[in-house]
């Protein structure tokens, strides 16, 4: 303990040997650190940062794959905002779908998670059943739902008919197509539900019991204990859900081909059309940067607002 008691010279030599050894160990650790993470770092540079810079550059050009291209400044952007009617429609449709599908899918997932959390025999089998829709490949499930949505012979209209409700046109009518696609995404909410389930299992039991002792009912428990304690999970699922649904594409390509009357012309579909069907790479790059900014603003907004409603438990 007493430093002065230790012979000075001895200490010094020991010290240098130690420092040298540590330096060597440190150097090795740095080398191996970069060695092991090199794939990800290279990947980040090659597949993300490089293409982002290139895409930003292209967005200021009239690049069309064939022939020369030149720098045209903000012309793509002004064209998009001033003259592109599809852009406005597409932005509206994408917002409508993204917000609707995020809210309804989250609600469905939370509900399913609560079901998955009930202690009954064979619960693992139920959990599997709720997760199964997630496993169906997107194209296969889209073709299946195309059949379920069929206005003349589909299952959904048969059910409506059976309970004496008027039939719907589902994905074949402009007013019902987005709600129909939201219904489809609610069907495969099992993945999100599993993440909610993990959160539900961490809800402190003593708090739930405390509410019960104070005479609270299930709603009080849900509202004042469960929701606050799973708020970080709600936050995570909300962000991931929004980012995912802003990028919806397959449903529109396989099921509706953007129609009827462009009512499912999702934003990524619009980019796909411009880039790969019309070869307007510069224009499409500008479109994609607008999408990026929109998602960024949304995400930042949710992050900001999260401070008032996301509660992290004491230690975290």
């Amino acid at each position, binding site marked *: 303990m007493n430093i002065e008691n230790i012979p000075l010279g001895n200490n010094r030599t020991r010290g240098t040997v130690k420092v040298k050894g540590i330096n060597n160990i440190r150097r090795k650790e*740095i080398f191996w650190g970069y060695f*092991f993470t090199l794939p990800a770092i*290279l990947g980040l540079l090659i597949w993300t940062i490089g293409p982002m810079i290139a895409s930003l550059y292209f967005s200021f050009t009239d690049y069309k794959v064939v022939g020369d291209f030149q720098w045209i400044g903000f012309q793509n952007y002004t064209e998009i905002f001033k003259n592109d009617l599809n852009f406005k429609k597409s932005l509206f449709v994408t917002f409508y779908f993204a917000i609707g599908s995020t809210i309804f899918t989250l609600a469905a997932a939370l509900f399913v998670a609560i079901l998955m959390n009930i202690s009954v025999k064979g619960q693992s089998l139920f959990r599997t059943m709720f997760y199964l829709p997630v496993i169906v490949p997107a194209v296969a499930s889209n073709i299946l739902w195309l059949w379920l949505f069929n206005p003349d012979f589909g299952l959904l209209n048969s059910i409506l008919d059976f309970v004496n409700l008027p039939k719907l046109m589902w994905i074949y009518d402009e007013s019902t197509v987005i709600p129909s696609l939201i219904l489809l995404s609610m069907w495969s909410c099992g993945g999100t539900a599993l993440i909610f389930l993990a*959160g539900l299992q961490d809800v402190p039991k003593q708090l739930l019991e405390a509410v019960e002792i104070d005479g609270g009912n299930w709603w009080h428990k849900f509202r004042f204990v469960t929701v606050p304690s799973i708020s970080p*999970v709600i936050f995570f699922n909300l962000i991931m859900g929004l980012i995912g649904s802003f990028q919806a594409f*397959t449903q529109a390509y396989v099921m509706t081909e953007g129609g009827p009357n462009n009512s499912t012309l999702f934003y990524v579909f619009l980019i796909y059309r411009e880039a790969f069907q019309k070869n307007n790479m510069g224009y499409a790059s500008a479109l994609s940067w607008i999408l990026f900014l929109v998602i960024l603003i949304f995400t930042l907004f949710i992050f900001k607002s999260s401070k008032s409603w996301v509660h992290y438990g004491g230690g975290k």
Partner: protein
Amino acid sequence: MKLKTVNRSISLFVLIVGAIISLIPFVWLIRSSLMTTTEIFEFPPKLLPEEFQWSNYVEIFSIIDFLLYFKNTLIILIPVLIGTILTCCMCGYGFARLKFPGRDMWFGLIIATMMLPGAVTLIPTFLMWSELEAINTFWPLIIPAFFGGGGFFIFLMRQFFMNIPRELDESALIDGASHFQIFTKILLPLVKAPMLVVGFFTFMGVWNDFFGPLIFLNDEAKYTLALGLLQLKGSYAADWHLMMAAAAVMTLPAIVIFFIGQRYFIEGISLTGIKG
């Protein structure tokens, strides 16, 4: 006490109803895939076919080249599995266990890419592959997997490596083992379960992938199952019984693989959301 039993019965009832709603589309898929053309267009619909038309499943193999599409999908899937599992384990280990300057910045950037819409990098990536004359080859769908497999998997593996006691590495280091030996001999055998999870998600990703093949492959002989199925939709739009059979064939392998490892997968899926 009595109230509790009532509550439990209601819960169980809702649970069963929920599960049935979740499963109905599958039932419809299978029953429609076993019907004749006339049966499938009856209204109100019949629950079960009069006679199971197993021949539908044979017929789809003769109208589209399912086996070729299956082979193409495997040619992409196998290297992607190897690349993703190998490199995401390496990166997860590096970010969890080794200290080096800039580590947290790189990790932060890699995590941030999870929020980046794919559309932003899509066009330059496509142009790059087209510069390399790799359009209509499988390379654009395979090579990126060897770069860590994406932020999500790196994050997942890092979580697992962080949970393994440090004493293991430290005592091995004192015994003179290198970081490479620690990784391959000591830590890798301990993360088999998350490797399975990554493998399952990767399989699902490739099996499901529609956008990638749509953009990079245009020769029919190179099509994957997802594109093949879509092609069927284009040419046999009215033959719902065949489309349902084809959709069922494409779904089956995914479900079989899920059932084999479901315990790991369900744990893995829930783990990704909570820790971080």
